[in-house]
């Protein structure tokens, strides 16, 4: 009896959360997929109508903008945050004196919610209140920095705010990675008289590949589910120039009573997540099996 219990206990303990995940994650993914194939408006309907919602979605200029923005924002955000995070980490790694304090300062934006970040940057970037007004106040009358109200550049202001928030976190990840590289190898390289930049580019950074992958996955999912930052910083405007798929989905589901359309956009978002995550999972699982 006890032996049986011992064997079964882990399964019994895990079962509730397993069932919860099965129903609330995979079950509702299936439900959303079903609804995306219907003409549901205000309330969900279950009569299948084919791919009308997807046709509408890909014909909509607003979705074009939102989907394009996802890539503009996602790529810039991930690349800049990683580069900046790496540079900061390498600089902090030079055994400087107040490392602890500086590390905390850079990491702190991560403690703020995206809503606070968005609101603060909204004021900083507002041409009448923030940077532009300040620099003009110093006497540079022609200085102009109106990205946040310019539909062609507003998406970059989202990148700025998101990078500001996340690069400290990336720095912390990389710093941990840098510290985990075997000291002996570095010392051996130093003895051989190899210049520092070469040590970093040929030894330390290549040995940090798993950290890069983790950072990429974390940043990519932050980018795809970005919602609150856009709502707080630009509200999707000017016009709908800073819409992201998540805000598009919200507008359709909750403001317009167009559940079918919202479901189809959610499915496309999920497809994007899968194209990023599945190769990662695959490589992880394969490595485990072989190891």
């Amino acid at each position, binding site marked *: 009896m006890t032996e049986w219990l011992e064997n079964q206990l882990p399964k019994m303990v895990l079962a509730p959360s397993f069932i919860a995940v099965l129903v609330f994650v995979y079950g509702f993914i299936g439900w959303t997929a079903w609804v995306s194939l219907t003409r549901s*408006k*205000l*309330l969900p309907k279950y009569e299948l109508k084919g791919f009308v919602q997807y046709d*509408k979605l890909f*014909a*909509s*200029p*607003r979705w074009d903008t939102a989907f394009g923005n996802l890539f503009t924002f996602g790529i810039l955000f991930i690349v800049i945050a990683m580069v900046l995070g790496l540079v900061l980490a390498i600089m902090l790694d030079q055994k400087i004196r107040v490392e602890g304090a500086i590390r905390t300062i850079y990491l702190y934006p991560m403690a703020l919610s995206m809503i606070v970040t968005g609101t603060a940057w*909204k004021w900083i970037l*507002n*041409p*009448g209140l923030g940077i532009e007004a300040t620099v003009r106040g110093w006497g540079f009358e022609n200085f102009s920095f*109106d990205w*946040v*109200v310019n*539909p062609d550049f*507003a998406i970059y202001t989202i990148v700025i705010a998101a990078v500001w928030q996340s690069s400290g976190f990336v720095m912390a990840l990389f710093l941990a990675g840098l510290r985990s590289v075997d000291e002996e190898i570095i010392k051996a390289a130093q003895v051989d008289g190899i210049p520092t930049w070469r040590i970093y580019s040929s030894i330390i950074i290549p040995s940090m590949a798993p950290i890069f992958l983790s950072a990429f996955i974390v940043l990519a999912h932050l980018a795809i589910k970005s919602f609150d930052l856009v709502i707080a910083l*630009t*509200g*999707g*405007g*000017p*016009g*709908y*120039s800073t819409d992201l798929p998540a805000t598009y989905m919200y*507008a*359709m589901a*909750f*403001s*317009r*009573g*167009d559940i079918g*359309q919202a479901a189809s956009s959610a499915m496309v978002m999920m497809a994007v997540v899968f194209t990023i995550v599945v190769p990662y999972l695959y490589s992880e699982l394969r490595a485990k099996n072989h190891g």
Partner: protein
Amino acid sequence: MKRTAFAAVSSIALIASSAAFAEPQAEVLHWWTSGGEAKSVAVLQKEFADNGGTWTDMPVAGGGGDAAMSALRARVLSGNAPTAVQLKGPAIQEWYEEGVLANISAVAEAEGWADVLPASIAGHMKCEGEWCAAPVNVHRVDWIWANADVLEANGIAMPTTWDEFNAAAAKLQAAGVIPLAHGGQAWQDATVFEAVALGILGAEGFHKAFVELDEATLTSDAMVAVFDQMRTMRGYVDANFSGRDWNLATAMVMNGEAAFQIMGDWAKGEFMAAGKVPGEDFLCASTPGEGFLYNVDSFAMFDVDGDDKKAGQDLLAKLIVGPSFQEVFNLNKGSIPARTDVALDKFDTCAHLSADDMKASSENGSLLPSYAHGMALRGAQSGAITDVVTAHFNSDMSSADAVAQLAQAVASSY
């Protein structure tokens, strides 16, 4: 055995007592949670209690009603709808089609609603000929507000045509005043757009374009002219308008930074709250052109079980359209009563103008639902139009492109 007998007796007693007293009960879902609005609901709540009813308040704030709609959806799906829900325009019909609205024709006929409500507003309250909702107020959307001192200092009268408006705006701009206070949010862009459209297309054209969604009208040269005027007006707002809330734009008119604002009569509440006097400190007029765009708040009545709830529903409907509530509520809210037989002695001059215009436009057929505020079209269609309007206003899209996109967006929104 004893137990079941007791249960049976007590349940009979319960049924008997509920039939005998049927104390009116109402659970009311609404999103009037801020200052003047909350005060207005409290008035209804008090009247309901004075008539022996029990009011269960269910305020859901946030997102201009989006959050309340999510709550409603959950309640309806779980088969437990509230008694009355703050709904308006075609959304009432949309819920009716889901088969969840109640019929309150008995109350409406006993109270003679058909005689006191303007016909086009009454139309929104009926589902296939039966009354299913009760109107609370009428907000006029096509208002233009102005700072009296700024206009006087620049020798400008309230514009009566869009050309006059443009001339006045150019003059103000030269004098260093922002001609048009505006907030770059999609619904505000849409508000200005529909005021312009009413002026340029006329009442009939507006109805064709934004109620019937007639393709010929949507792609007409007049529609191109509407977008041209929007482009002109883009030049009259300050560089900093993106994302500004409407009440901050109203404040710009109040303190003389800007001259005009095009906004519904909730803007009047802001002026009043700041102690400004209509006709002296600020001016109100309908936007250039004939017609009246209304935004009518109403309560839709949902199908409920139980005599007490049905009694509550009937009482609520009766009180909402009753003259005393219509007066007190609208004094608090800044709108005008939906029924036309309420004495307006306590109302200000702007409200009088609004009431007179509503009567006149109801007679000549130019009393029209506001598209920007969800009175004319369903969410998907009005949203599709707003997308084009706001994209055009906030970019350098040509008017011809905007018209083409408009037709395409409307066609694919069904």
